């Protein structure tokens, strides 16, 4: 780690662990680094928004921050002022030990917070609907359908229309939005692409949905944020928003690889392991997603044989 961390956008995605070259240098340079590192670190999250969902969320976030300053300012000012002015050693200040209520003041205490909460509630209601992760994104182009399966400790992405699949690499053409249907082949997980927008849980036997889009081609980090065991910290994946040509090449590369995602290959993927390099599958057993879903469907299908009578 250099002392003048350049404001670069590091390629995100699974970085192989390497030994820290020097452990002492960063300790010495904390103060020097903070402002520089501080600028770039926020680019990895919502403030470095790279898609319409993230941008709207960022605007909402900044608006709420501005309103919050209004809420906090009186408290942050009055507390030190009152405490200092009415300190014991200040013999000039008034003292009214038996004063404990005042109607106008009471109004001032109850009404403004109520008004602020009403304003915030209106904003909240509007934007919760506007930014509903289930809501399809407005776009002239049809969304790319992707079925995401959470596994320990990797993500499987199935492209039902293209008939390909990938592990730990989510590619899509940047000009089209992407519609994810999620489930889990294991415990609950949460799929999150910080620079593109929100996250949603993936749960076994159930489907959730997420709509995302990117403004321009780019490479983003995706992750699982719900702890799920020893490989949790390694469960990152690359999100590749590509030009149409690159996306076509990506599909071609997947098909050229010749690997097939059939139930046997899926079973191998469900082993609890981390996966550093992405895997591409050129073909997928039809309805694999539905069969994964049915395997853990709460209630609607028959019992497995492995339970003793």
């Amino acid at each position, binding site marked *: 780690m250099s002392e003048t961390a350049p404001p670069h956008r590091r390629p995100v995605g699974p970085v192989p662990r390497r030994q820290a070259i020097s452990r002492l240098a960063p300790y010495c340079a904390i103060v020097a680094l903070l402002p520089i590192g501080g600028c770039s670190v926020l680019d990895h999250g919502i403030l470095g928004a790279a898609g319409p969902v993230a941008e709207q969320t960022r605007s909402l976030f900044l608006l709420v921050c501005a309103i919050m300053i209004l809420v906090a300012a009186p408290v*942050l000012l009055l507390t030190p002022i009152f405490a200092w002015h009415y300190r014991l050693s200040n013999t000039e200040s008034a003292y009214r*030990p038996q004063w404990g209520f005042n109607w106008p003041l009471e109004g001032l205490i109850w009404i403004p917070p109520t008004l602020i909460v009403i304003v915030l509630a209106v904003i909240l209601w509007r934007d919760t609907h506007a930014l509903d992760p289930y809501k399809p994104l407005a776009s002239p182009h049809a969304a790319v359908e992707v079925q995401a399966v959470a596994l320990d400790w990797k993500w499987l992405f199935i492209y039902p229309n293209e008939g390909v699949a990938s592990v730990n690499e989510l590619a899509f053409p940047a000009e089209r939005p992407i519609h994810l249907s999620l489930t889990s082949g294991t415990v609950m997980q949460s799929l999150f692409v910080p620079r593109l927008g*929100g996250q949603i849980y993936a749960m076994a036997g159930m489907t959730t949905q997420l709509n995302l889009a990117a403004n321009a081609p780019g490479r983003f980090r995706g992750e699982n944020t719900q702890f799920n065991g020893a490989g949790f910290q390694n469960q990152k994946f690359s999100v590749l928003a590509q030009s149409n040509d690159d996306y076509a090449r990506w599909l071609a590369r997947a098909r050229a690889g010749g690997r097939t995602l059939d139930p046997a290959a899926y079973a191998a993927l469900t082993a609890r392991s981390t996966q550093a390099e992405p895997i591409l599958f050129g073909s997928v057993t039809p309805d694999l997603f539905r069969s994964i879903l049915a395997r853990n469907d709460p209630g609607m299908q028959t019992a497995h044989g492995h339970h003793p009578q």
Partner: protein
Amino acid sequence: MSDDGHWLTLLGHLNARSFPFVRAWDDPTVSELIGALAGALVVVGALALVALVTWKRWWRPLVRDWLTSLDHKKIGIMYVVLAGVMLSRALVEAVLMRTQQSLAVDAPGIVAPEHFAQLFSTHGTIMIFFMAMPFLTGLINYVVPLQIGARDVAFPLLNSISLMLTAGGAGLVMISLAVGEFSTGGWSGYPPYTGKAFQPGVGPDYWIWAITLSSLGTTFSGLNFAATIYKKRCPGMHLSRMPLFCWTALCTSILMIFAMPPLTLATALLALDRYLDFHFFTNDLGGNMMNYVNLFWLFGHPEVYILILPAFGVFSEVISAFSSKELYGYKSLAAATMVIGVLSFTVWLHHFFTMGQSADVNAAFGVATMTIAIPTGVKIYDWIWTMFRGEVRFTAPMLFALAFIVTFVLGGLTGIMLAIPPIDYVVHNTVFLVAHFHNMLIPGLLYGMIAGYMYWFPKAFGFRLSEVWGKVAFGCWVSGFYLAFMPLYVLGLSGMARRSQALFEPDYRPWLLVAVVGAFLLLAGLVSLFVQLWVSVRDRAANRVPVGDPWDARSLEWSVSAPPPEYNFATIPQVDRLDPFYWRKERGEAYRPADRYNAIAVPKNSWVGPLVGLAGAACAFGLVWHIGWLTLLGFVGVWIPVIARSFMRDVHRTIPASEIEATERRWLDRAHAARPVPRELETEPANLGLARPFPAQVPA
């Protein structure tokens, strides 16, 4: 149920590999050695404690004066001691986690993933169930009966049982360091991850049974406090004349009564899944983990207010006392407390906005969540206006209260942000969330508990705590908090997932380094508290406040000697308005002998509590390790003392009137001989606990 055979063996699932020492011997990595060291600390610590007690011949007084005592004051103190011990462990764990993250940017660090997961699970579990809950239960236990003019809680024996069940749960968590391992599923223990399919070991079982013991104890405590406050108030002490701490204690008790059953049920059903192959939260055969999430947060959100409200009560007392002023907006504060209590049951869904509910549902719960900000904001302003036209002294508890107001507001702001679902989507499960709830709980709970501890300590022990070390502790706790958690907001906004054992983003490093410095400062804060205690005990002769009113405070607990007599009040007080002791002093009616003294019956000591706690812990340990005979023995051992006790009729001891009269006279003589001190001297040795009245008013 493939392991039926184990239930019948002597040691169940226990074997050599259950012990961290053996594991470290086989595989001597840094991570395993840390585990073995922690286990060794538990074993050596326990042995050293036993040796010390034996050497000092403390067994008899320990058992007679403390463990078997039914006096609410002693039970309260034992709760706080338990909280202090558990706080120490959980804070060391926090420092270890922060150290690991600061070292593990593109590097393995010193703690393996499995151990890291146990660290955050025990840290959360201990901090909530075995630090925060015992601390506030202890304060309520000590203070509320004194404040409402009662001689004890409604059910003294149940009180002891609650304490010992909680201690049994805490003991189980401690044992898990030396025998076996703890859950890796976090303090919330979400299945299916904590189910048998994914964690077949004993970890989640330790978690389940420790929580169960604690939640039973807490339910009984809530019941006890509610009955105490409703039924044991002295004549004239209407609800609307209770000190605000009693209001918050009442609200917390009600929340305990209603919010603990969902937790008990959630862990019980999870246990059925794990032990008897039920399908409540499994992935297959119709299990539905969403039921667990709902049950858990149906408990979990009210729990937040169970934790925070008593601290609100403490701050109300502290700010009023150290401003020498009536609390501003008493009725507002009491109403706001109750509103918060009711609303706290309507917002649980905001803990899982990202589970795929419709926008309508999310928005409704988001709005409900923000509504809580109104009464909370009102409280903040009420405290600020309490200082208005007061005489503010910057003693350590007051400093904690001021730091609380400022810091808590910042946490509240991020709470509002998290209440807005779209914002929650992008910071949920990141360290932003971690920063937020620490930002609520460290000022909103821990500062309050520390302030309460320092404020009431002279009442409980008869001497003041060192002011200098109190301020050192304050400096560490506050600066440590900001350094440790403000970076986490930044990191969370940058998408850093919580509970990460290693990180792969070099830009995170500087912020993680600041955070670890903060964590060490917080540890220094804890150490300062212990130094403060040691210094104060050493210098206690110079800081005695036997008369009992060192802060010129206003409620009934200050109207008796410090420490108070076993029976609290020689005669049950009569109250005619709020702040009765203030008005008694104002009218010159304080420190007067009663016309006549009567004999008082106090509960005799009882072994039932310790036996129930011990048997409960044994039963839990048997369940964890599938040891059938121990489980059965423990279960029967819980009930036998309880049933046997119901056959005892001689459960009271009478203190004769003459003894009471003598004690009271001694105290009153001391009060009349003491020199009243002005507020300027309240932290000086001159302060014997008798306050000089303020000049009534100073004009503006």
